[in-house]
């Protein structure tokens, strides 16, 4: 039986652990679980799923909402490019919505879609084998699966997707959900050293698991974002010496700002991580046999390590859309709040939709700024919105307005966030205590609540989500439980939101309205 827990919903009640202690484990609120438990656990897993107070345990993709009525467009050919979480979810929702036409899923990886969050947690510790994170089987969608072949181009006018092997797949409507890949170490020769890893796919996880299980003398992690921090946590759990090198002043800084970053730094150091902040890796060094030996850091120091993990973020898989005329670039694929792709000129298309990591959509709560979110919940929720809108007429489309929610598990702590923590100028701890690493922190921007982060306090998050959605004043000025003396707003220390880019990416040409057009500049500077 396959299991996946929607950890954006999970509030850490732990009922599943009581009922199936061989499948689910938990430290305070950080839940880990076996995604592919042995058959003799089936009964326990069913009991656990029935008992979940927020019904977050999925044994199949149970419908979250009943079908919304007969769709306006029941027939036709829908192509979904990208067969991971968002793409697979969209196919299922299309059927649930009553779509009766053909669905074709195109994916560059062979095999069924799998869940990625466990790759940096249960898989690396060895609790779950790398191949055992398949998502619960989709209901029979009757979809055609074209796996193992990437899409090479999109012909919007001709309504077809071109595959790398030369095939053409025609569509009436298409969903783009090609996701991201790990950002590689920029020096190819150094990246190719034996012992240098990235972590994005199940194959990456299997390789890294083997490397960690072999008992390296020291692991070097480049980057202390969520992935890097989670891997560091696993290393300490495996009792491996680990050095984390982070360019910013604290871990998690680019996601949560420096105040919470300091808490994360304390957490890492308390667990024995050699954390070096404000430093970068200048070079990875190998021995004559091509094996990683260590790294030279920007401060002149060196680290000896035989395994390195490059955790410097991700790159969006949008190159194949070059020439499609869509507003697709390193920032993602721009779309409206209903997941309809926008072309280079800023015009909304009507038959090209986007979901998941590559979707860059405007969020009304954040001054209609365009944002793309690499969260599990975003992939699932946006796929649902996109699929619904693909079969609905103008009057029945849904906007994607959810406050973003994401979670991480590291060093035994369950970290969750709602809203956009970097959209902030101030922060305050409203409940609990940073010193105890059990707290709720609220972010404010120009006097309103814009985000909240919890450490092992997940069950309060939905209250703060309502404050965010209701544009409540910041700092919160009401009386409530667990407020500690002396906690007031302080500077959020978030990174600059507008990062100056190296150069323009688009130019506008032409003169009168009939001929004015935007064109994308590619790396060579040519339109």
């Amino acid at each position, binding site marked *: 039986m396959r299991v996946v827990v929607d950890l954006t919903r999970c509030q850490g009640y732990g009922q599943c652990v009581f009922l199936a*202690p061989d499948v689910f484990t938990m430290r305070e609120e950080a839940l880990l679980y076996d995604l592919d438990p042995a058959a003799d656990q089936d009964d326990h897993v069913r009991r656990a799923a029935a008992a979940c107070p927020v019904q977050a345990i999925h044994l199949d993709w149970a419908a979250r909402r009943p079908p919304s009525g007969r769709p306006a467009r029941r027939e036709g050919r829908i192509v979904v490019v990208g067969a991971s979480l968002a793409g697979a979810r969209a196919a299922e929702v299309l059927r649930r919505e009553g779509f009766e036409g053909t669905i074709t899923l195109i994916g560059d990886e062979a095999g069924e879609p799998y869940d990625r969050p466990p790759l940096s947690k249960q898989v690396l510790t060895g609790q779950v084998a790398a191949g055992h994170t398949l998502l619960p089987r989709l209901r029979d969608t009757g979809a055609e699966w074209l796996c193992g072949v990437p899409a090479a181009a999109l012909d919007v006018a001709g309504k077809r997707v071109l595959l790398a092997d030369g095939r053409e797949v025609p569509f009436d409507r298409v969903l783009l959900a090609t996701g991201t890949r790990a950002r590689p170490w920029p020096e190819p020769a150094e990246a190719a050293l034996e012992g240098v890893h990235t972590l994005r796919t199940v194959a990456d996880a299997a390789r890294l698991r083997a490397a960690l299980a072999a008992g390296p003398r020291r692991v070097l992690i480049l980057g202390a974002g969520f992935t890097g921090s989670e891997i560091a946590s696993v290393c300490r759990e495996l009792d491996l010496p680990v050095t984390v090198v982070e360019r910013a002043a604290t871990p998690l800084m680019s996601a949560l700002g420096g105040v919470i970053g300091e808490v994360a730094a304390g957490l890492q150091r308390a667990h024995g991580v050699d954390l070096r902040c404000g430093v970068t890796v200048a070079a990875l060094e190998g021995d004559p046999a091509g094996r990683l030996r260590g790294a030279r850091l920007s401060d002149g120091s060196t680290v000896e390590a035989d395994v390195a993990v490059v955790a410097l973020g991700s790159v969006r898989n949008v190159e194949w859309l070059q020439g499609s005329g869509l507003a697709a670039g390193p920032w993602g694929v721009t779309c409206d709040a209903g997941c309809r792709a926008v072309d280079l000129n800023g015009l909304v298309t009507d038959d090209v939709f986007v979901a998941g990591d590559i979707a860059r959509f405007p969020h009304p709560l954040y001054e209609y700024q365009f944002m793309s979110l690499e969260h599990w919940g975003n992939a699932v929720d946006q796929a649902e919105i996109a699929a619904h809108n693909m079969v609905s007429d103008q009057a029945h489309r849904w906007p994607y307005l959810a406050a973003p929610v994401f979670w991480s598990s590291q060093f035994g702590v369950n970290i969750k966030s709602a809203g956009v923590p970097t959209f902030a100028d101030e922060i305050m701890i409203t409940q609990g205590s940073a010193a105890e690493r059990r707290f709720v922190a609220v972010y404010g921007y120009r006097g309103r609540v814009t985000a909240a982060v919890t450490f092992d306090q997940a069950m309060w998050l939905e209250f703060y989500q309502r404050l965010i959605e209701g544009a409540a004043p910041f700092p919160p000025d009401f009386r409530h439980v667990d407020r500690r003396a002396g906690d007031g707003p302080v500077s959020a220390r978030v990174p600059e939101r507008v990062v100056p880019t190296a150069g323009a990416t688009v130019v506008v040409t032409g003169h009168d309205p009939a001929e004015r057009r935007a064109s994308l500049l590619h790396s060579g500077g040519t339109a």
Partner: protein
Amino acid sequence: MSSPFEQILDPARRADPYPLFDRLRDTPVARQPDGTYVVSTYREIVSLLHDPRVSSDRRNLGSDAGEAPRDPSFIGLDPPEHDRLRRLAMRHFGPPHAARTVEELRPEMLAIATRLIDGLAGRSRADIVDEVAYPLPVAVICRLLGVPEEDEPRFHAWADQAIETLGPGEQDRAERERARREVLTELENYLAGLAEDRRRAPGTDMLSGFVTYHGPEGGMTHREVVATAVLLLIAGHETTINLIANGLLTFLRHPGLLDRVRAEPGLIVPAVEELLRYEPPVQLISSRIALADIEVGGTTIPAGSPVVLAVAAGSRDPAHTPDPGLFLLDRPRNEHLGFGGGAHYCFGAPLARLETQIVLGELVRRLRAPRLVADPPPYRPSAVLRGPRHLVIDYAGVDPA
């Protein structure tokens, strides 16, 4: 004509309060004459269960509430005191430190259920409350806490009285609190003595864990041990009795259900979840206080007001659950309020679930042709913890275990 909520409190309406709960939901946030606000719709209840502006500590109610209890247990405390005590208690009961405790009780629970049902053999009539629904959870909680079983009859009376004096409303709360405190004092004295014994000669039970554990954040004080033990002892069985009795009652009212569960024993798992939604033992969460003005469901609950969450109404809210008045064994995604929610989510939920699954499953499997002698059965008076006082059934025989 009294309000729907006042009628719900009337013991004469205990047998079927659900039409009243349906009417209660017409006003999602209803102010009562005594200043209590009753909240009855699902969304609004869930939001208040997660609202840090809602306190569970009655000491936050103004001075007119009568004398405050001396040592609230964690059910009557807010974070961080609540979290600390609950964590200290959880250490010896569930994850992360004792994740298997409840699961490992399964064989013993089955043995107790088997013994109790064996006791029904050779007759054709029994009171399921007195003979099964009550003794099972009592035996289990005694085993867990380390209370000698021979002392069980003594706190039977204490626990019963403690429940009967519990209830919402502020009008005669001071008087009820006084009566309640007398009972609790006796129970406290008993448990304090037991804790002393455990301190001298610790065993593997929870009470021994309470008195001996001292970690980085300290341990429980003697008074905290007693308050926690009283809570677990009372809450650990008074609710489960009702869940079991309500469960068998529901099955006997719907013979088709009985046949289905008999044919497919695994259905007892969703059946118990549906019971928690459809006939919850805890109908009202009655001791919350607004610390600030809280706008909910279009009404502002003023700071300082007592708040009652009508969870039995919320779990039957048609805006949350389709066909809420139907008992559906295989209800998909059954999200109910049977164990509350938020920081005070029922501590003993895993125990209650497992006990009820086991004993109801065994009753369904072993009782031949059971039927109700009286419908409705007589009810206990409490509107907060609702269940039959007796549940007399006739049956054709008892199949062997």
